[in-house]
């Protein structure tokens, strides 16, 4: 197991985090360090504990054991809003976007810029529209009309609005939950570019995926999860794409399955032409 050769403080760190749901141990003793300017990929197959881990990182669940540190200080998230206030922003798979509301209204939801401090003060719409448009342009998205409903956008565009929102509101740790899973090739490429963009701005990006082909090109560090446990954290230089796939799918298990299949095929006299 290799640690990335970095001496700066991690932007976010999990120490010995376990999560139990009744008798189910969803996560066991997870240690993760995420550094600024790094894309840290959390990889794992279905049921590996990715979703639970993301909920711990984002403040939806509280760990049963262990601690979360942001900038070296132990923190407790009571809600996703708590996490956001400490600069930990999560773009969930459902994106947290409300389709019937406009881009601007979604962008500023919960942080609406008002013209005064009075309770029913007017939202400064001109400023909100301009800021939303600029924030989107900053990460390379040209919004046609910030007042159009989010439901009219494509999946990739919605994803980018969500990322732009997180970046704009001062996220230092950006957690992306399967951002490319529902997207086509072009749109996935667009989202991967935003990830690089965020990294270049010095954000610590946590990229959760089960798709190694999306994660490997943009990732700096890979943490592999399997059945609720950390199966190792590797720098990109220390691990190949195939090795990642092998560990992700449970390595030995897969070899056993392959051998079994090969045996079956041999029995019926139809040998595979190539074994990976």
């Amino acid at each position, binding site marked *: 197991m290799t640690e990335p050769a970095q001496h700066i403080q991690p932007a976010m760190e999990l120490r010995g985090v376990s999560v139990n749901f009744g008798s189910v141990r969803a996560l066991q003793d997870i240690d993760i360090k995420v550094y600024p300017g790094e894309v840290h990929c959390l990889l794992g197959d279905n049921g590996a504990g990715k979703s639970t881990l993301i909920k711990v990182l*984002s403040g*939806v669940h509280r760990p049963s054991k262990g601690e979360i540190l942001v900038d070296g200080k132990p923190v407790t998230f009571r*809600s*996703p*809003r708590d996490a*956001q206030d400490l600069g930990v922003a*999560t773009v*969930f798979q*459902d*994106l*947290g*976007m*409300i*389709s*019937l*509301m406009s881009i601007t*209204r979604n962008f*500023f*939801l*919960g*942080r*609406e810029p*008002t013209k005064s401090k009075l*309770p*029913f*003060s*007017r*939202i400064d*719409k001109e400023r909100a529209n*301009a800021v939303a*448009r*600029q924030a*989107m*342009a*900053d990460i*390379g*998205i*040209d*919004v*046609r*009309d910030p007042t*159009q*409903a989010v*439901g*009219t*956008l*494509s999946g*990739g*565009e919605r994803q980018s609005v969500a990322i732009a929102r997180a970046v704009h509101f001062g996220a230092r740790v950006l957690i992306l939950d399967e951002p490319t899973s529902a997207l086509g090739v*072009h*749109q996935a*490429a*667009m989202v991967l*570019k935003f990830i690089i*963009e965020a990294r*270049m701005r010095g954000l610590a990006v946590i990229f959760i995926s089960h798709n190694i082909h999306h994660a490997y090109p943009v990732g700096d560090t890979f943490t592999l999860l399997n059945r609720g446990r950390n199966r190792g954290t590797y720098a990109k230089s220390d691990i190949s794409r195939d090795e990642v796939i092998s560990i992700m799918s449970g390595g030995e298990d897969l070899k056993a399955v392959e051998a079994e299949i090969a045996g079956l095929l041999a029995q019926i006299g139809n040998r595979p032409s190539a074994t990976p």
Partner: protein
Amino acid sequence: MAVVEDKATHPDSPAKDRFGMTSKRAGGADERLASTGRLTQWLRRPEAGAAGGLAATIIIFAMLPGAANLYSLQGSMTFLTLSAELGIIATAAALLIIAGEFDLSVGSMVGFAGVVIGLTVKYWGLPLWGGIACAFAVAILTGYLNGLIVVKTRLPSFIVTLASLYILRGLSIGITRAVTGRTQIPYILDGAQDPGTAGLFNGHLLTGLFHWMGAQGWIATRSDGIPFVVGMPMSIVWWLGLTALAGYVLTQTKYGNWIFATGGDLNAARNVGVPVDRVKISLFIYTACAATLLATIQVMEAGSADTTRGLLKEFEAIIAAVIGGVLLTGGYGTVYGVLFGALIFGLVQMGIFYTGIDTDWFKVFLGIVILMAVLVNNYIRLKALGRGGGK
């Protein structure tokens, strides 16, 4: 979506150049907006269907016999008053529906609030304003409890407030009969001489103007020179005032944004820090208070309270909201549409009366209007999302 494909497939598109840099170009207008004309934009507004429906209703009744009476100043004030009484609670119901919840106890609250005013003023000797204050206090408590139960148990508000519907109606009848031996409380205003407070709810505005118009011979007057319509009834003033206020809050303020978000996607709203529970509870309180305002107006006008008042008003409120373009599933709608919805309701109710059509047909008509409204709403919602139609 076309735009994204453009960026990805054309190597010289601006998106490529901007990658990794900050764009300053974004401030200006976008030429691709031109395709959305003003008419389309207007048609996409949620109240467009209701506005069209209102125009059609006005024209239909104008062509039927009795139109002259219906559209006379008196006739207009009559149907406007009906619309106003419905509109006051429908606006509140609409905000609540937009936030994703229903309140079926509105009608019972109207009856119960009337009973509270009647009993406190007539039997417990409170001044009129004190009785009204008691009714509002009860409304705040009822709305708070409705809201609290809904957000804590996460049960559908449909069921929770259906229970409140029966509890409040039962309490109205039970308490009134226990105290007075009857189900009505008449002559409430006789002992309480407080024209100032009463006038706030059953008085008229612009009486000087109407008197002057009567003196000019522009509007019909009685033999003593006092016009038949002495001014604009306060119910209409309350209705228009509350609609304007609700419209402002919904579209212009932070709280309004939260109402849309709460009904649009509860989890997403909660995750970005919108206090969704507070939004819902406050709207349940507002709905109960709107019902109490209507009850107060009715008590001041009739001088009596009746335990059966407000019967089925909860459904009329929901109907007006739906006709007004509010989406039953939450997250979408306007209060201006509800204004049109309430107008259609009042106009049809009085129109059928004036034109001499058998009033038995009113409910048939109402059913058809609801169905049409829901179909139009669904279509408009799809339009708003830029989809042509269908699923």
